[in-house]
């Protein structure tokens, strides 16, 4: 155990203990209120550039396993909890979370008042932070903070997108019905797993893929994935998507929705502390149904900035923010929350059907 500091950009600090990895890391600090699913969270590319605080105090209880991953690596820049569990228990576990973080060289800090930290972020908004086991000097930390990039305006997509196109394998016994071109902005594997189970053969493209490259495979639809950072900074993808609108069904999740909103000429704005958790109620106006959803976003599309042709089909019941949109004339649909869950409830898996329907109806 080694003393560590979590230093926030507004000067507030928390002293705790670091797990095995020493050193220093920085990023935007956000809190996640999920009770389970830390392994999925760690491997979710949308968290690139961020330090994640788990509000549930006991993290690591069931260890880690080989299956519950959302990408090939750990993306968070730092991990914070009240107590990391030294002894895990689960029949699928292959190692402890502490070992896992060590293996992935992630700096993690425990033994701090995570509730106070969460309250602070709620009041002041998401902000940058440094975790250090080497530097405890306020002035020096404040100096370093100046060099930590802000989330606003940061293009993190290029850091996490695939370098080469690939095809996600179909599960045994499922024959492909649709061909989907996916723009990988940091795609979660569970989206791919669900697409495959629904009979979609997904061709995953780097985010820098051109419209021509995407269309070359003659897809039935295009999917814009989730991903990290400020959507407004991902200009190349926005312009790619612009050129595809109206040509074929387009579907977006999370960052994908924000990019769609921008491509349709709308605006996005930063939420104070974002939505990161697995208990947000979302109402679907089309089905008149409420689902408990998995959420992970810091930005939101401004509905008013979009024309009358775009309608809100999902709303967050907690803060009434937009959670899903649909174009009235063109085959465009997207969701701000995560129908693929992982982690989180499976209530809104059915939302994939919106896209499948569009592809079905495609002439």
């Amino acid at each position, binding site marked *: 155990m080694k003393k560590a500091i979590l230093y926030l950009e507004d000067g507030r600090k*928390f002293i705790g203990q670091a797990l095995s990895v020493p050193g220093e890391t920085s990023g935007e600090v956000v*809190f996640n*209120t*999920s*009770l*389970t*699913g830390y*392994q*999925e969270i760690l491997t979710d590319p949308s968290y690139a550039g961020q330090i994640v605080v788990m*509000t*549930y*105090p*006991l993290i690591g*209880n*069931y260890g880690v*396993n080989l*299956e*519950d991953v959302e990408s090939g690596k750990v993306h968070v820049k730092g991990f914070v909890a*009240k*107590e990391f*569990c*030294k*002894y*895990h*228990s*689960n*029949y*699928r576990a292959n190692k402890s979370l502490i070992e896992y973080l060590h293996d992935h060289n992630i700096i993690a800090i425990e033994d*701090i*008042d*995570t*509730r*106070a930290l*969460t*309250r602070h972020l*709620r009041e002041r908004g998401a902000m940058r932070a440094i975790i250090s086991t080497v530097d405890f000097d306020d002035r020096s930390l404040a100096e370093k903070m100046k060099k930590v990039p802000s989330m606003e305006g940061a293009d993190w997509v290029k850091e996490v997108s695939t370098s080469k196109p690939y095809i996600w394998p179909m599960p045994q016994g499922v024959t492909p019905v649709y061909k989907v071109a996916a723009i990988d902005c940091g795609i979660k594997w569970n989206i791919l797993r669900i697409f495959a189970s629904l009979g979609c053969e997904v061709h995953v493209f780097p985010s820098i893929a051109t419209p021509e490259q995407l269309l070359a495979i003659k897809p039935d639809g295009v999917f814009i994935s989730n991903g990290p950072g400020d959507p407004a900074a991902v200009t190349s993808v926005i312009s790619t998507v612009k050129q595809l609108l109206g040509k074929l069904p387009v579907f977006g999740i999370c960052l994908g929705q924000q990019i769609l909103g921008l491509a349709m000429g709308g605006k996005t704005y930063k939420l104070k502390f974002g939505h990161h*958790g*697995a*208990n*947000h*109620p979302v*109402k679907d106006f089309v089905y*008149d*149904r*409420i689902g*408990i959803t998995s959420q992970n976003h810091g930005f939101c599309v401004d509905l008013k900035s979009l024309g009358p042709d775009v309608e809100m089909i999902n709303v967050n*019941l*907690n*803060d009434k923010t937009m959670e899903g949109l649909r174009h009235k004339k063109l085959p465009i649909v997207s969701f701000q929350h995560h129908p693929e*869950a*992982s*982690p*989180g*409830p*499976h*209530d809104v898996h059915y939302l994939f059907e919106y896209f499948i329907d569009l592809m079905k109806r495609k002439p």
Partner: protein
Amino acid sequence: MILGAGPIVIGQACEFDYSGTQACKALKEEGYEIVLVNSNPATIMTDPEFSDHTYIEPLTPEFLEAIIEKERPDAILPTLGGQTALNLAMKLYENGVLEKYKVQVLGATYEVIKKAEDRECFKKAMIKIGLDVPRSGCAYNLEEAKAIASDIGFPVIIRSSFTLGGTGGGFAHNMEDLERMAALGIESSMIHEVIIEESIAGWKEYELEVMRDKKDNVVIVCSIENLDPMGIHTGDSITVAPAQTLTDNEYQTMRDSSLKIIREIGVETGGSNIQFAVDPKTGRQVVIEMNPRVSRSSALASKATGFPIAKFAAKLAVGYTLDEIQNDITRVTPACFEPTIDYCVVKIPRFTFEKFPEAKDILGVQMKSVGETMAIGRTFKEALQKGLRGLEIGHTGLDNKLNYKKIPNDKLKKRLEEPNASRIFYLKYALQKGWTPEEVAEITKIDIWFLAHIKDILDFERKLIETFQREDTLSDDLIRKAKQYGFSDAQLAEIMEIDEMTMYKLRKSKGITAVFKLVDTCAAEFEAYTPYFYSTYEEEDEAVIQIARMNKEHGGARKKIMILGGGPNRIGQGIEFDYCCCHASFALKEMGFETIMVNSNPETVSTDYDISDRLYFEPVTFENVMNIVDIEKPDGVIVQFGGQTPLNLARKLRDAGVPIIGTSVESIDLAEDRQKFSQVIDKLGFVQPANGSAFTAAEALKIADQIGYPVLARPSYVLGGRAMRIVYERKALSSFIEEAKEVSPGHPVLIDKFVEDAIEVDVDALCDGEDTFVAGIMEHIENAGIHSGDSACVLPPPTISEVVIEQIKNDTCTLAKTLKVIGLLNIQYAIKGRRLYVLEVNPRASRTSPFVSKATGIPLAKIAAQIMAGKKLKEFNLTYAQLERLKHFSVKESVLPFSRFSGVDIVLGPEMKSTGEVMGTAATFGEAFIKSQISAGQMLPEKGKIFISVKDEDKRAIVFIAKRLVDLGFSLISTRGTAKVLRSNGVEVEETKRYDQGQNKGDSSVELIEKGEIALVINTPSGEVSQYDMRSIRSSAILHNIPCITTLQGAWAAVNGIEERMKHKCTVRSLQELYKV
């Protein structure tokens, strides 16, 4: 119409008062006219202001029909009153009452209840929706049985269909076991059928609390993981919220299943509880059962998350949807969400095996605990240690009551193998001995996750001890860490070889103080307004922030009064005290005070966050109370209402400078200290039974010889008459002294002359230090010698003369004034002839306070609280004339848990054994009594054969009772002695053989009971050594649900009641009507 759950029994405790009270409030708020029915007077929900028509009447189809006929409700809500209410709704449907009066059932329909409750239906439904259940099959012969068992794989559970009391069932670990048990099972089954089921004992057990609305929105409120594996009733298990060892993937699978289940079973609206078992080796999940109603776990889930399940269930039942209800805590978000928590909750059951020494403390599938405590901490370690303190069984945490070195390995192994009430401590002892968590897990099937945390605690404790021994001090960092691990000041004091108070002061001087965190349903994601707190040792204190905000909202600080609750329910201290605490809060709020509640019992109304201005969910211990006092600085603290728990803290709190209001600590002591109290009695010229106190057997014998046998002997400083006994001779007294030493070591044994054949009277009074008002004089139906908590009593007293009543009033006023009582006072008297003996004075809320309040309409606890806060009795205009105007009798009857403890005799004595009470009211004593019996489940017959066997002293008196029974058309059967006396007095009676005399199989009394030929048993046991025969008669009566009366006075009252009932149909009247007279 809302149905309550009736008396507190094991398995159905005050959680249903909590849910019913919430339902009444929620629906009243919506403008509905409410008819409430519950037979339990100690509940908050039966307060006349919570509903429009409050019926304290028996919960039977007959009485409900009468109430329905009278009130004509539009709908009935049966899902908030436990299994009792659900079963009643089923019966009312089946017998056509609901259809006849066009009453709609809310929450769950008949079909839904049937589908969920019928094992076979439920299993079929689960298979239909593709869920896994334990594999099983039915066999009608040995070959089939063997084939099924080999298919399933051993071990298997064998259950014989349609037998009583589970004969012919059990675990078979191999073919040999199976052959033997299946043969027996097939033979004993009425339809020659055995069910062979896969054993899932030892699997991990989980529960999910689910809510659904009419638009099919479903949310999971809370997940719960049991520390104890499958095979131990979840009510008897230590449980933890949220689930700890499920990955998201597995948790979501369980969640998906729950959604499917609630939809398939069809619970339209409200809460349900679904149980799962998980194979720790493969992760296979099977569905165990579902309760289509609010349950004990729902109460726990509500308190654990802040999500008021019962209140929302009531609103959903009348048509709201989850998104239309606001979350009170955040004020901005809807109830349609899933709470997320940022702490760990541990629930620990409280047992009372010490009350039933013949019963083993082994746990199994039948629930045996009588109460529970819940603790909230930021970590499991902290919550577990807090919970163990909150249990109030003398543990200061996961402490070292026993020296692990002195426990032999084989005993330790046995205590680990057999699940029992103190297993949690044996886990520690085993780990202290160096057994690995893996080894302990193998023996106990308790998940290694829990064991590893327990090991963390003891490793840290070892570090503290070693550090202190080496350095003679502990660093601030270590002390702080210890507090975060949940160590109490008392535990640390022991390590540092100082006392608790010194440790408390030392800790404070080092600035290591508790902070309070909010329970807010959302892990701080939204601002929370509900002031519901728990303590921990971290940086930020939210209580301070909330207090400031509330002061601002109220335009400045108000005076505040803190009320200490009673902790977990136990025999002798239950819902009555929670009732008093809640009333104190209501009354003080009315006066403009800010009220602060401290309690650790999740089943209660007092721990509902909207009862008081602030709720601290904390163990009621000196340390935890002081932590709150330090932050809140209350103007007054009330210790009178929570039973013995807060009373025991009174002196220590006062010494620490806490402003205790009401009767002073000195007066409480004066009443409890026998010597001082005797002096007071003498000075006043009152009479007390001759008495003395002894430290040794020789002293005791000397005293007893002086005052003469029989004597009432008891250890001092105990609750509920613990180990109290009537002793008839020297030898028995000597052996009692030995036992008493164990029960209350270091304290004297008290010896009183036992006043035989006296009438006992309980008096509840109010006093403001000057004036006294005697609110209720209750005459016990059983003679003195039976604990007042177990005795039935009636108000007003039917057989006591005016002269004696006047004397009781006068003496009560004198005693109240002498003791300078401010608040409530309870006195027990014994009357023999015209002589009035003062048995006991308790200057605090008594168990009978709610009963008296309900019987008279005078809210005693409320008035008492206001008196403590400075009002004068005069201001309430209470007059005796007011009481005398009431033209009805009220009978309180107790409800006993004997059926839960096999092998325990059901004889009543000076040690309290009842878990709950019921009340019957009517214009005549007979009718009120019979109602109380019906409510208590004693179904007195109107025809049939009555078994009578009484001790010699009662033989003369039984003759007249027997004659009346014959006149009423009953036939009698007696053992030889009793039969002889009856016959010689001209009463016709059949004679039965004693069990041991039974010549021919089938004609002993026990067998007659088993055959259902006996409708009522009247048996007064003789002296200390009751004959084996009689004991088995009583046990078998209990087993076969045949009413059994063990006192002469009880028999008298029963005859009156039976006669009344045969004369006319029982009437039903609401409290509101009774008070209007």
